[in-house]
């Protein structure tokens, strides 16, 4: 079995056993990036110190030093997350020449555990998008069908794991940006509970919704990464002090008797028929595992996309005010300060980012605040209450991650609403702050991946990971990889 076919936990075991060196491991994935990134455009930049770091780990291991639980494991990190001394662009021209002055907390933790950041992955500009077509650095393609999108905004992280250019990756999720690309690329992705993983060093899009999480092939790998990145951080004022228990130890706890809710409205007519079929097949697998399936209602979930597309742009319009030409690398020519602001923001931001800032500024402006932001925030309360009630009855909620498999490149670029509706099943978890993950089920008849979404109570990521892991014990969809050379699927 080649190195790229191995899961992260197996790679770590081999490194620990001395059967594999970190240098060989990193070199292998650097070679794959060199060969395949021209097709996938999954990485915006590749680390020029990764090999050096690997050599250091090999020397320390040889010297008998105690090493962290990920020592020597290459990890790809979304380019909206700061890695000290590395380019950190958030997919924007605005930050094209920005070099992060410090490590994000999750990067610090990964490095402390011995992981090696192999490169920074492509994304929709400032994480605004569902296809990675909004990147200033060009679209990422889906390794399962290179004429299709990988999803977004963490499309680079999803494509690089699916295409085995890195064993595991880190993404961020504001309205589905980990789960939707995980679904489109046939991998596993977890958006943790809001506050579970520090946002320090994550370039902010919508601060009350943003959350960093793992994007991996298996639930077990996600559990492994969560054991490193989760936990309180005093540098993030919304970081939770809630106790973190090790997900790895509970993965095999039987699911017998677990109550799983299914919202029948989410398996409606608008759903792609194959998505519906495969999700129903997955429900049967959970039944075989001993789960009790119950019907639930989430009556306000139909309004989630509308509420989200008020709240997120409002927060973004405020967060992105900092890009004014003074501090962050890009400045347009101007004769005075005001003109510098306007020209810098006009030239430095892409169309979608400008559109969302316009929308957010409009919705927050005098006379509109109550009708838009306040109303959306009240609807957000109702959405949260729906979940609170549902979780009185059930332990998990199961449904599709996305209404369709991956769409074609360019298919929705001129129609913002069609693009926004790709998030219809994912945004609610961000609004409510609960954890949610996407897990691959049987692909479509044309070989396109389909994702199952599991949502859980706040701070119960371990229940999600346990359910996903045992589903993966019974299925093999997560272990299939796209054929090389990559194919189109017109």
């Amino acid at each position, binding site marked *: 079995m080649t190195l790229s076919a191995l899961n992260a936990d197996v790679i770590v075991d081999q490194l620990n056993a001395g059967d594999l060196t970190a240098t060989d491991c990193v070199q292998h994935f650097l070679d794959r990036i060199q060969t395949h990134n021209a097709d996938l455009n999954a990485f915006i930049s590749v680390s020029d110190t990764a090999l050096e770091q690997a050599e250091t780990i090999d020397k320390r291991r040889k010297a008998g030093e105690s090493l962290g639980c990920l020592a020597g494991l290459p990890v790809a990190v979304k380019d909206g997350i700061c890695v000290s001394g590395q380019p950190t662009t958030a997919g924007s021209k605005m930050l094209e020449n920005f070099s992060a002055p410090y490590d994000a907390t999750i990067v610090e933790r990964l490095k402390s555990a011995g992981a090696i950041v192999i490169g920074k992955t492509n994304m929709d500009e400032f994480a605004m998008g569902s296809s990675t077509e909004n990147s200033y650095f060009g679209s990422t393609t889906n390794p399962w069908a290179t004429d299709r999108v990988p999803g977004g905004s963490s499309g680079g992280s999803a494509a690089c794991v699916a295409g085995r250019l890195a064993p595991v990756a880190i993404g961020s999720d504001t309205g589905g940006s980990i789960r939707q690309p995980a679904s489109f690329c046939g991998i596993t992705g977890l958006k943790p509970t809001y506050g579970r993983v520090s946002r320090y060093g994550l370039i902010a899009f919508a601060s009350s919704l943003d959350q960093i999480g793992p994007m991996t092939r298996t639930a077990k790998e996600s559990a492994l990464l969560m054991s490193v990145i989760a936990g309180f951080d005093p540098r993030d004022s919304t970081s939770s002090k809630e106790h973190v228990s090790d997900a790895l130890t509970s993965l095999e706890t039987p699911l017998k008797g677990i109550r799983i809710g299914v919202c029948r409205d989410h398996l409606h007519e608008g759903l792609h028929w194959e998505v519906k079929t495969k999700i129903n097949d997955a429900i049967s697998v959970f039944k075989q595992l001993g789960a009790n399936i119950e019907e639930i209602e989430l009556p306000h979930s139909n309004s989630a996309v509308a509420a989200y597309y008020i709240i997120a742009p409002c927060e973004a319009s405020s967060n992105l005010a900092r890009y004014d030409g*003074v501090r962050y*690398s890009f400045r347009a020519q101007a004769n005075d300060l005001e003109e510098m602001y306007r020209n810098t923001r006009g030239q430095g931001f892409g169309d979608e980012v400008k559109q969302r800032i316009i929308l957010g500024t409009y919705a927050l402006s005098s006379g509109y605040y109550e009708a838009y932001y306040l109303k959306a925030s009240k609807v957000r309360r109702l959405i949260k209450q729906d979940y609170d009630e549902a979780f009185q009855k059930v332990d998990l909620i199961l449904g599709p991650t996305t209404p369709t498999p991956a769409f074609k490149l360019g298919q929705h670029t001129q129609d913002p609403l069609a693009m*926004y509706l790709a998030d219809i099943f994912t945004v609610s978890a961000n609004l409510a*702050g609960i954890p949610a993950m996407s897990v691959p089920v049987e692909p479509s008849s044309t070989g396109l991946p389909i994702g199952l979404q599991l949502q859980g109570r706040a701070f119960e990521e371990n229940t999600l990971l346990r359910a996903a892991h045992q589903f993966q014990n019974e299925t093999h969809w997560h272990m299939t990889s796209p054929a090389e050379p990559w194919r189109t699927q017109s």
Partner: protein
Amino acid sequence: MPDTPEQPIVNQVARLARIHLDEQQLKSSGEKLEQILGFVSQLEQIELPKDVIPFFGAIESVNAIRDDQLQTSVPREKILDNAPESDGEFYLVPPVFKPTDS
């Protein structure tokens, strides 16, 4: 070219947001804004229970308070490395006021 209904508003909002948009961008942005506002207007149909409290943050935690402690920060030079223009100590910007004839 006739204005779309939202174009004058977009012009005003773009000015507030300090974003320069050319004529074509203003038109396109106005059309998209109108389309999105049409979509989100569905929120008007939702009847809110009396006294529903808006939910602004996913965690309703109390404010984070901690003792003052002196800690090292990222060195100024490192921060200024990303400045488009600096004198090594401060950010430099174009004139705040427009040059006037004297």
